[in-house]
């Protein structure tokens, strides 16, 4: 296990007793020369409740892997508190509670899938009989039962990710940390990995996964965190994060044949379409309801007919680009 710079600190209890991951004021500084250093993580704080799927979003080089390395105990934080299930990261106790899937499958490729799981099971302190029993089940679960005696060298990238999932789940950890699990996979591989994650989530495990692909987060996650230049720009429940942001409303309506909507003051931003008029309204969340009501009222006053009102919620992409 790595040297744990937190070992001598008095660690406060997690803000939530149900927190699976608790990060508070974490800084990571890499020395680039004797005199210079670069700050990879700057006062990052976040909490992931148990049973959540947390998407850690950020562009390449934002600090995602640095935080993950601290969480899994490969590196120590320069400052701050980092805990897994209430145990300081880097300690034996925290490592026994987490499963890790690295960004790129750097495995001992001369091993077969079963030998690979036996090796990692022994490192986890599991008995050989237990490892064999679990390996069979896990290889079946990730769809590699037939390839269990094949060398990892012959595996495709998707198969390597799947065998990586099997090793991460071998000791039935409470927390799974996945570093860009869908990176470099083709659409079929992405779908397979996404299904595995969704399947694991059903067992109540906490899943923390980093990605720079927003769609993956939208599809899988319940909570999200954004990181940019080593700083956490925001984190929380996706619905609540999106709920606070700007929305737009699309109103489709028709007017009487002799009426021109663009000549009505409140409707002047409307555009004519094949089957009527469309008005896209963008405003602050607080004002949008009132403005929508005023527009509908104007349409009705002009003897028009409202065909549809489609509220458009902000997407994670809007939020991501807004934040970054």
């Amino acid at each position: 296990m790595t040297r744990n710079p937190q070992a001598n600190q008095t660690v406060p209890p997690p803000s939530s007793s149900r927190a699976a991951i608790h990060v508070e004021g974490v800084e990571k500084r890499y020395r680039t020369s004797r005199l210079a250093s670069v700050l990879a993580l700057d006062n990052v704080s976040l909490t992931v409740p148990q049973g959540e799927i947390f998407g850690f979003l950020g562009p390449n080089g934002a600090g995602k892997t640095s935080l993950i390395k601290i969480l899994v105990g490969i590196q120590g934080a320069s400052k701050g508190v980092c805990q897994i299930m209430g145990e300081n990261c880097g300690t034996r106790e925290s490592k026994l509670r987490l499963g890790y899937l690295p960004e790129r499958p750097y495995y001992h490729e001369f091993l077969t899938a079963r030998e690979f799981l036996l090796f990692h099971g022994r490192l986890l302190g599991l008995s050989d009989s237990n490892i064999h029993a679990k390996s069979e089940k896990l290889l079946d679960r990730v769809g590699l039962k037939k390839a269990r005696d094949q060398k990892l060298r012959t595996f495709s990238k998707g198969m390597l990710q799947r065998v990586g999932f099997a090793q991460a789940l071998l000791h039935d950890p409470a927390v799974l940390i996945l570093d860009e699990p869908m990176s470099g996979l083709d659409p079929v591989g992405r779908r397979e990995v996404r299904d595995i994650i969704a399947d694991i989530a059903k067992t109540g495990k906490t899943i923390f996964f980093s990605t720079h692909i927003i769609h993956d987060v939208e599809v899988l996650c319940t909570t999200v965190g954004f990181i940019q230049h080593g700083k956490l720009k925001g984190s929380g429940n996706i619905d609540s994060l999106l709920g606070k942001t700007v929305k737009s409303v699309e109103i489709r309506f028709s007017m009487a044949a002799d009426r021109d909507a663009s000549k009505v003051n409140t409707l002047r931003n409307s555009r004519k379409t094949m089957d009527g008029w469309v008005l896209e309204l963008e405003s602050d969340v607080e004002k949008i309801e009132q403005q929508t009501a005023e527009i509908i009222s104007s349409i009705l006053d002009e003897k028009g007919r409202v065909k549809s009102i489609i509220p458009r919620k902000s997407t994670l992409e809007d939020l991501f680009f807004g934040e970054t």
Partner: protein
Amino acid sequence: MKQNYLRTPIKQSLRQVFAISSVTFQELLREKILWSALLFAVLCVALSLAAAQLSFADQARIALDFGLTSVSIIGGLISVIMGSSLIAKEVHHRTLYLVLTKAVWRWQFVVGKFLGLLALLTLNSLIISGIAIGIFLLLDGQFRMSILQNYILQMSEFAILSAVACVFSAFSTATLSAIVTSGIWIIGHAMTDFQVLIPKIEPPLARPFLDFTARVLPDLTRFDIKAQVSHILPVTWSYTGVSVLYALSYVLFALAIACFVFTRRDL
């Protein structure tokens, strides 16, 4: 969430070290350099048969000399080259990331890698020695205890070289580690001459530094008893025992440094 973890921490710790050394052994067995070295050694030993035919003197002795020298050179080369890449390669290929995220201490990783290499060296030396001794006995040579003592001392030397290579491999690149360890291997075999030369070195100011270097670097001359084996000179078991103890202490010292350095390294 009850897990079937082994209860004895020492037993578990040893099991983890064994798992790492076992995978290291398998990994090293796949190295082309090992098989090239082994082939070269076998050729050298086979050549000893031809060389022995050319001699009017003791043919068995010449064959044994060839064999013992092959074991020494090939084993030393494998210790230096493979030892130097032992940890550096894991860092470079990032295969250690997944290992270190398990409940494994970094010292276990270093010790496991070292033991894996030592197991390979034992096997390699056994094969070459076995062939060499087989030829020696075929040429009517008489087996003597000093041949076994030579094997034990050779293994001790390889253990020291591997441990020294581990120290450099823990914080440096494989190439740099190999260069420095090769230097130590050469100086270690010239230690007697080196110690004689130190009082004559000019300026005298450099002498304490050189004296310190001579004390820190391993004295590998004590593991070289090939001449005694060849000329049927006695080698006492107490000499062998003390040399093995020296090697053991040096290996522990070197591994402690390697573990200390590697534990503090930011990966």
